[in-house]
């Protein structure tokens, strides 16, 4: 093959890869553009502090849905973050290579790939049916199950980055393993662990499918954690698929709020982590 042909072929392939990358970003800017454009025109203070209006009426807000999402993400974090971090500690500090650790790591990876609606089904049949009603607790629990593998993975990566010599220095001083883990290793990796937790929070706060039949949604304020509760993604779904123009507006506004939340969390997490590694 002659050299010029090889060079042209090289140039052609490089252009194709660059074009593919540009093509991949078109939907991102398409979605962001429309959400910002349509969302802004519908967004106002009322949106954050009022309850939804009845169908077909304009105005109203999604205050209950925003609070509902925060509550359920909080429940999920309270359950999911400790379980995730403790498991990751086991995997890195106590037992890196046994069959149990390999199995847990494998299960973690596989769990990340299980469709989130499956979690909804499991919580529905095991919690909602037993309790007899939809609830914020059931919703938070299903989000926790989605969160756990994410936290394990990110925490494990961060703990692995802590240099082995720090551990050895601790042992050399005769410090007990518990103190080494709690006082030396965890603080060293803290920034990274928090970053991972924030990304997991961002991920579950946008989840809709597992909430459809655990939290259900609610047009009003939930008075306790034992009641059906509104969630931002669920509300967006219901409004988007409704036939009312006013509700479509609200769905765009809700999406703008949701996307801003997710992107801000992502940005903070990444910037924080970068300043650590620099």
């Amino acid at each position, binding site marked *: 093959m002659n050299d010029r042909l090889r060079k042209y072929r090289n140039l052609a392939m490089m252009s194709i890869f660059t074009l593919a990358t540009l093509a991949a970003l078109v939907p991102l800017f398409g979605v*962001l553009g429309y959400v910002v454009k349509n969302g802004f025109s519908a967004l106002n203070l009322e949106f954050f502090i009022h309850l939804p209006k009845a169908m077909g009426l304009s105005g109203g807000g999604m205050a209950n849905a925003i609070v509902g999402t925060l509550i359920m993400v909080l429940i999920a974090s309270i359950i999911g973050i400790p379980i995730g971090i403790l*498991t990751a500690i086991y995997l890195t500090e106590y037992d890196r290579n046994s069959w149990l650790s390999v199995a847990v790591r494998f299960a973690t990876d596989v769990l990340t790939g299980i469709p989130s609606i499956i979690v909804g089904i499991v919580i529905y*049949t095991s919690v909602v049916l037993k309790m007899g009603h939809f609830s914020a607790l059931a919703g938070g629990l299903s989000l926790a199950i989605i969160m756990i593998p994410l936290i394990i993975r990110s925490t494990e990566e961060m703990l692995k980055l802590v240099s082995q010599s720090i551990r050895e220095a601790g042992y050399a001083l005769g410090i007990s393993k518990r103190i080494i883990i709690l006082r030396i290793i965890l603080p060293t990796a803290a920034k990274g662990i928090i970053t991972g937790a924030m990304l997991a929070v961002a991920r579950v706060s946008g989840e809709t499918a597992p909430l459809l039949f655990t939290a259900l949604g609610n047009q009003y304020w939930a008075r306790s954690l034992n009641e059906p509760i509104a969630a931002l993604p669920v509300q967006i779904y219901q409004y988007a698929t409704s036939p009312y123009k006013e509700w479509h507006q609200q769905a765009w506004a809700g999406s703008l709020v949701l996307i801003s939340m997710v992107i801000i969390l992502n940005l903070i997490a990444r910037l924080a982590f970068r300043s650590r590694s620099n």
Partner: protein
Amino acid sequence: MSKKTKLTASIGDQTLRSLTLLMAISVLVLMAWMGWQMYYSALPSIQKFGFSFITGRVWDPVKEQFGALPFIYGTLVTSLLALLIATPIGLGVAIFLNEMAASKVRMVVAFLVEMLAAIPSVVYGLWGIFVLAPWLRETVEPGLAKWFGFIPLFQGTPAGFGMLAGGLILAVMILPTIAAISGEVMAAVPNEQREAALALGATKWEMIRLAVLPYAKSGILGGIMLGLGRALGETMAVTMLIGNRPDILPSLFAPAYSMAAVIANEFTEATNTLYLSALVEIGLILFGITLILNCFARILVWSVARGPKGGTSNE
């Protein structure tokens, strides 16, 4: 150290160790429990319909007739369409990021691609309903029908909502997965491989084709399988775009239904046990397929990114 503090220290050590061990085991238990819980809830339907559940074409809750084939069909067609579109583009992105881009460009573009994965599925669905579907109905589908109308895939009335819309939105959603995993395994290819190819006078493309891709092949395949797994189980965006009609039609323009979508739409309406357990059985099939796909995919990715081929481990 006095004897007493030593004792409490060792009790503390034991407690922390046991606690972490317990949590690690609970992850395994969680997965087994999920499987069992679904199997148990699906049992009435499994016993009643047996294998005909998968081959049955009729879904009629009133007559208690449950066949899941239309949902399986819609899921497979949209997911394969998504793979067909997302695989080449995702690979292109991975190659661009790993082999071509300068580090600043890479950082920005990698972040943007991750944002593509971070956008919630319901927002994609909203955008799909009001932007993608109308565009397909008015521009893309009439165009396809005009030029490729002799193929059954592109016949029928352009409706916007259908398997084409579902497949396209899935392609967008799985692209970051394919790009990220392929990128990860390409990064695990030792630099000596690249340098050897370049030293022999290879162009960049030849280096990628001869030294990088063959080495990363099984990992890339794993990435594609993970993408497929994500597409199969993706719920909201597809539910909002696929048209939700349990028909088996050849045209990509035609409305269809997916496994996840029928669960999302009908689960809270399923009042009797058989109906509910039929829906759970669809979930169980989905669970089974994604479980197997994920197992294979992880083994493939692990074999490249963490594997025994000396020097590739990044730990």
